[in-house]
Each structure stands twice: as structure tokens, then as C-alpha cells.
């Protein structure tokens, strides 16, 4: 109960038989307009791509298992160019805040916002202004061959000494991403034995709420100091600034 075919039978296709009627592609009127590869209509003569820019996006999310994996998965699957992603609890035990630093062309920035917003556990998303308060933390272990010089550099960058033992000094630097870069660069002259740094944590400046949901959130749930302690991090890569 089978049919056999020899290879040759397939290959002999009568190409005259296939195809449809009508003028071929070369005989057709073709439009002269054009879009960029991001799908934006452009002047056909002009440069067709958008430059990437670096920006910070804050997302208030439900504090439940799986949110970090969901956001991280989204970012990697959609291939957004991400510099850092931090997450930590807020004063409300039900919510956590994520801060994303991304480098994308304008349409990409809008997409990151909208894709995040679409996730069910994400409450509210906003791109922060240039004046937002942004902090990063680095902890580094430096050789102590010249303690006075290490001390001087530490002072220059407002670094705190967390630990000093024969052989190493461990210091903490906080600041903008660029400030932390510069401090690490400066410590490099002593030789940095080990380094760990966090991503950026950021809030909108002054009276401005960081995301749309903040105001509502505080009205619903008065700030409760005890809640802050009991709220544990969502999972994994939380930006903790433990200073003991």
C-alpha cells in the first residue's frame, strides 16, 4: 500500500505552466517613497536611521514571583539594548520598582515602555527625564600597598572604606554611572583585586512622581516603615545598599 516515485518525476516541472497573467515586476508602476528600517516614512534622499540614545525607564511592578524573569525575558527576547536592570522593594509590600537603563533609537525606547506596560504584573511605566536622580553603587577591593594614596583617592571620590585588612582595602562608591566609572578608573592605579557593581537605581527629581501610579499608590497605602523592612526583594538581582 504505497506509491513509489523516482526522483526524476519531480524535477521535470513545466515552468511554462505555472505563473499568472499580468505585467511583470519591471513593467509595473512602483512607488517612490521609502521608510526607514524602523518603519518610519522618510525623505527618500535623507539618511534613513535613528541614532540610539541612552535613557532610564522606571517600572512599578507587582511584588510577586516571576516578575523579574518576565521582564528580563521580554528584554532579551525582543533584543532591546539594555545596560542595566535593577529591582528592589518599595515602601509598599505589594509593589517593587525596576529601573532599566537602555540604549535604543527613539522608536525602540517607546517600544520598551509599551512592551513593559503590557505585562500583566507591571503597574506603571515611565521614561525618566534627564534630570532624574540616578545612583549606582560599586564595591571594590584595592591593594593596600600605599594606604595613604588609596585614602586620598577615596576622599576625592567620596568613597567610603568598608573594610581594611593587611593587603586590601574595600571601598564603596556611589554616584551616577559616569562618576562610578571615573572612581574605578582612578582606583585602577593601585590595582583593583575585585569589583562588584549594581545597575542604576533612579527616581524622578523633586515633587514629580516617578511613575503615574505612585500618587495613587501612596493614597491607597500610607507609608509604613515596618512594611519596608518586611518587604523582601522580588528575587535575584535586587539593588540592595546594605551599609553595615
Amino acid at each position, binding site marked *: 500500500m504505497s506509491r513509489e*516515485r523516482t526522483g526524476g518525476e519531480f524535477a521535470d516541472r513545466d515552468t511554462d505552466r505555472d505563473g499568472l497573467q*499580468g505585467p511583470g515586476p519591471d513593467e509595473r508602476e512602483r512607488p517612490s517613497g521609502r521608510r526607514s528600517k524602523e518603519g518610519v*516614512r522618510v525623505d527618500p534622499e535623507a539618511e534613513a536611521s535613528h541614532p540610539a540614545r541612552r535613557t532610564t525607564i522606571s517600572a512599578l511592578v507587582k511584588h510577586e514571583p516571576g516578575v523579574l524573569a518576565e521582564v528580563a525575558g521580554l528584554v532579551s527576547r525582543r533584543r532591546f539594548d539594555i545596560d542595566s536592570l535593577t529591582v528592589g522593594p518599595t515602601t509598599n509590600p505589594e509593589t517593587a520598582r525596576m529601573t532599566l537603563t537602555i540604549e535604543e533609537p527613539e522608536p525602540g525606547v517607546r517600544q520598551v515602555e*509599551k512592551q513593559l506596560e*503590557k505585562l*500583566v504584573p507591571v503597574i506603571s511605566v515611565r521614561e525618566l527625564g534627564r534630570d532624574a536622580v540616578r545612583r549606582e553603587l560599586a564595591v571594590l577591593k584595592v591593594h593596600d600597598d600605599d594606604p595613604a594614596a588609596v585614602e586620598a583617592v577615596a576622599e576625592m571620590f567620596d568613597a567610603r572604606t568598608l573594610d581594611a585588612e593587611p593587603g586590601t582595602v574595600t571601598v564603596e562608591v556611589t554616584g551616577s554611572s559616569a562618576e562610578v566609572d571615573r572612581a574605578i578608573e582612578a582606583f585602577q592605579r593601585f590595582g583593583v583585586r575585585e569589583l562588584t557593581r549594581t545597575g542604576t537605581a533612579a527616581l524622578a527629581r523633586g515633587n514629580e512622581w516617578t511613575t503615574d501610579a505612585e500618587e495613587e499608590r501612596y493614597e491607597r497605602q500610607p507609608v509604613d516603615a515596618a512594611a519596608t523592612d518586611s518587604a523582601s526583594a522580588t528575587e535575584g538581582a535586587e539593588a540592595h545598599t546594605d551599609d553595615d
Partner: protein
Amino acid sequence: MSEPAPAAARPTEEEPRRDDERTEQSDEQPTETPSTPTTGADAAIAALTAAGVEHVFGVQGGAIMPVYDALAEAEAAPTHVTMAHEQAAAHAADAYGQVTGEPGVCMATSGPGATNLVTGIADADMDSDPVVALTGQVPTAFLGNDAFQETDTLGVTRPITKQNYVAGEADAVGPSVGEAVELAGAGRPGPTLVDLPKDATTAETTGDEAPEAELPEYYEAPEFAEESAVDAAADALARAERPLVLAGGGVVKAEASEELRAFVEAFDVPVVTTMPGIGAVPEDDDRCLSFAGMHGTGAANMAVSHTDCLFAIGTRFDDRLTGGVETFAPEAEVIHADIDAAEISKNVEADYPLVGDAAAVVEQVHEAFAERAADATERYADWREQCHEWEEQYPMTYAAPDEEPLKPQFVVEAADAATPDDAIVTTGVGQHQMWAAQYWTYRDPRCWVSSHGLGTMGYGLPAAIGAKVAAPDREVVCFEGDGSFMMTLQELSVAARENLDVTVIVLNNEAIGMVRQWQDAFFEGRHTASEYGWMPEFEPIAEAFGAKGFTLEGYDDVADTLEAAFAHDGPSVVDAQIDPGENVYPMVPSGGDNSGFALSEGQL
């Protein structure tokens, strides 16, 4: 097999159910009160029932056994259709959801059961179809330990579900299942999944009743678009000389067909659809140019390329539609209406974004445009004329049938002629799918059920089963390729057992034809692994499964054979042995320019 459920799974006669106890205590309680769920599994079934779910498609297994048991025990419960493979359960649920507009539900056990669902869930996700998957899971104490039949179902399905849940305790089962059903159908539909650890389904619940199903707290599905945006869009339409409506699958899902038809008729605007949007407007309407994209009609692709104002509704601008975005509707201002804000400007920049429900937004635009359209319809006259010229220049035809071999297009047209207008067509993926899209005339939404975004071979037969269960009174025709059919033909056993009157027409070219077509075009005709040197015959296969089998070789037999197959009360399979050399045209090479569609291989 896994261990059977521990004895604690279900209270026995000696241990009366909690609800019975309560009834005794309270005299006021009317006797008809629906029985209160006592285990997590009961709560799962109660939640499905409360949500109005009538059918469930699935396959048994150790970790899901308690849920099946509750299904059997419950007084009011959905009817279960046992499928041969979990992938088919997911496809059947997906098609059921497409035909009814209500979420389709599928069930599987943990591990391999859940992973077998994955293709079907991914398919539903890509096509925004409302599907709810309930998966068994190992007991919570074993989670993460690589226990027997454990898979991280949540992790595996996270990127392909709208939302997924693990119901970690009995009390979480009902609310999770309820929310999953609500969410699957709300806003932009999509698949949801609830993972059910066995201890959560066997343990007793402490809650009193099946709670009201709710959407997640922060979930919002906007209805109306912003007025100012609607006005701006209407202005753009009023300025346009060559407007075009592009109806996507979202029009079908939002039940916006009527509103869209009214709009198109009122202003006499040409309209094209995407493949998932087929049937959103009647294809035999004078203004409808059929579907655009890779294998769309010449007229539709010319119109898309030359429009100066594209009113796109419920489409995600898939690359099979757009070709290279650089050349897609390159002169058009784009009005994009979608319920999912994230679709706006994802692939094609929207000049006028309208976030809202398709039916509501089309009405809004209709009203706003009516105020501005005084001369619009006359102004479009030349454009309409141009579109008709394109239709005449690029007719959907095929070389006139000689005696043999059979042209697949002819078989599709003959089947269309032999069935009522509201027949449902399902397909596998490949050339046959394209011919079924091109040569069947769709007049209504929810008649065309296919795998678009994921392009899943083998989708057709399980989808036909789901469609027939959803609409038992309608004719269901499934076009499959021989390759696609081989992927899920075991489901014939289900169609036979359930006596589902579906007709499978295999457009048999003894090859995975679409691949071979690409090999002809782009791989110098090297047919690597695309031709079957040996194929089983489908007529006896059909008979062995309990279906009626037919073989179709010549034109003279087409009408009679199809008539006999449609007349057969139960599943039938027509093995239509078509011209193995036939290819699908027109064709826009992937990433190409829609207006550069090839009419034959020589033009690629």
C-alpha cells in the same frame, strides 16, 4: 505512568463534603445551591463552569488526574474531548476559541503533557487566540527537584503566554483558573496557563464558594480611542486621494466586521485584509481586493504599495504582510487602530495611533469622517478605478485544467462550490494553505481558521475537530498538505470516535511543497529533504482510523467524490493527488517589495 493520586484526593462517603455539612447546619440554604468545591480540582472545574466553558480538549496523566476526576464527579461540568496528542488538544482549543469567540480550554499532565502543549500555545500566542491551558504539575514539595515528569512549565511557557500562573495551594486554584479564563478573552486575546501542582488539586479548599472570576488588578483594555486622535485620523482620511483600509485579524476578534463593512460601504473605500483578517469583509464585495502580503493578490499588493493613507485595524504588521518595511506602503500616512498599544509603531510607524477596541474605534472614525467626507467619495473615484484595473490585470487564475494532473486550485474552488457559505475552512501550513486562502471565497468572519504567525504544520485536522465541536451544525472542511497531515493525522481517531463530520482534503503533492517551491526559487532546484520517496496511502489510513477514505485522481471525479465525502456522516479524508509541480503565485520574495510580486518562478 505516574503514581496514582493518594487516597486523600477526594473525600469518601464516610467523610462528607464540606458543603453537605454546611447545608445541614443552615436551614435557610435552598437545596438547589450548587455544591461547593471541596478540593482544588473541584475548584478548577467550578471555575471553568462558572465561566461558561462548555468543552475541554485534553489528554490524561498522573499529575492532572485529580482534575479529570473532578470533571467526572461534578454535576455541571464541561464536556471533555480526549485527544490523541496534547498538541492537538491545544490546536483544537485554539480553533474552538476562534470559531466561538470564547476561550478554548485544553488540559494536559505535567512534563511531556505540558511540553506537548507548547506548540499549540505558541501558535495561539502568535495569532492572539483565546486559549486557556491547565497543566498538571508535580506536588509543590517536589518542585525544582527534577521529579518524575517535572518540567518548569511556567518558565517554558512564560514567553508564549499572555500570563501564566502556578496555583500553589488549593485555595489559589479557583481564582487562578477564573482569572486565566477572563484574561484569555479580554482585550487582545491570547493564551493563559495555570500550572496545578498535584497537592493543590487534591487538598481541600477552605473557601466557601467559587469566587467571582476577575481580571488582574491592573489590567486595562481600552475601549474608545482618544477623541483628538480620532479627529486627526479623520482629517488624514479626508485629505487622502488614495485611501485604503487594511483589516487584520483584530477585526474578526473584536467582532468589528459589521462596523467595518458599514464604513467601507459608506465611503466606498477599497479594502484589503491580512491573512488572519480574511472574512472580515466579504471577498465578493466589489471594494474588497482580497488579502495582501507574500501570497496575496496582485491588486491588494499594488493598492498597499500605492495608497497615500492606510487605515490599518487590528494588525501587527507581520513581515509576511509587509515584506521589507522600507518598501511597505511607502507613501502612506498610517492610521493604526489596535487594542494593544504595544503594537502601535512596533514594525511600521503609525502617524495616527488609535488605541481601542476595533468596533468602537471604527465607529468613532466613521462618525468623525462623515463630518468631513462631503466630497471624499467622489475624490476617491479615480483610485477605486485604479484598484479595479489592478484586479483585472492580476486575476487569480491558474492554467486551465487538462485531464491530469489535478490542479489544487480547482479542488479548492470545487469544494467551495459544494459547501454552504458559512462553511469553516481549516488548514495545515504550506502551499495548500495558500491555495485555500486564495481560491476559496470567504464571505464572513470566523470561517477561516489557520495557523498564521507560527505557521504550524499539522494544525488543520485538530483545528477542524475544535471547529466542529464549536459549531456542530456547520460544514467543516480541512485542507492539509500530505506533509502537514502526517504530523497530526492520529487525530482522525478522535474525529471517528466522536463522530465529527469533518472533511479532510489532502492536497497531496507527495512533497513538502512549499519548501520545494523555495528550493526551486532560491536553492537552484536542489530538493533536499522536501520530496517523499515513499508515501503511505491516505485512503486506507483513513479507513483504518474509522473514517471514510477517498482517492481523487482526475477532474471527472472531483464533483462526485467531494459530494460523497461531504455527504458522509462522520469524518472523511479525500486524498487529492494534485500536480506535484504546481507552485503558489503571486509571491513577494521575503523581505521584498510588495509591488514587486512575482507571477511566476522566472520573475523571482
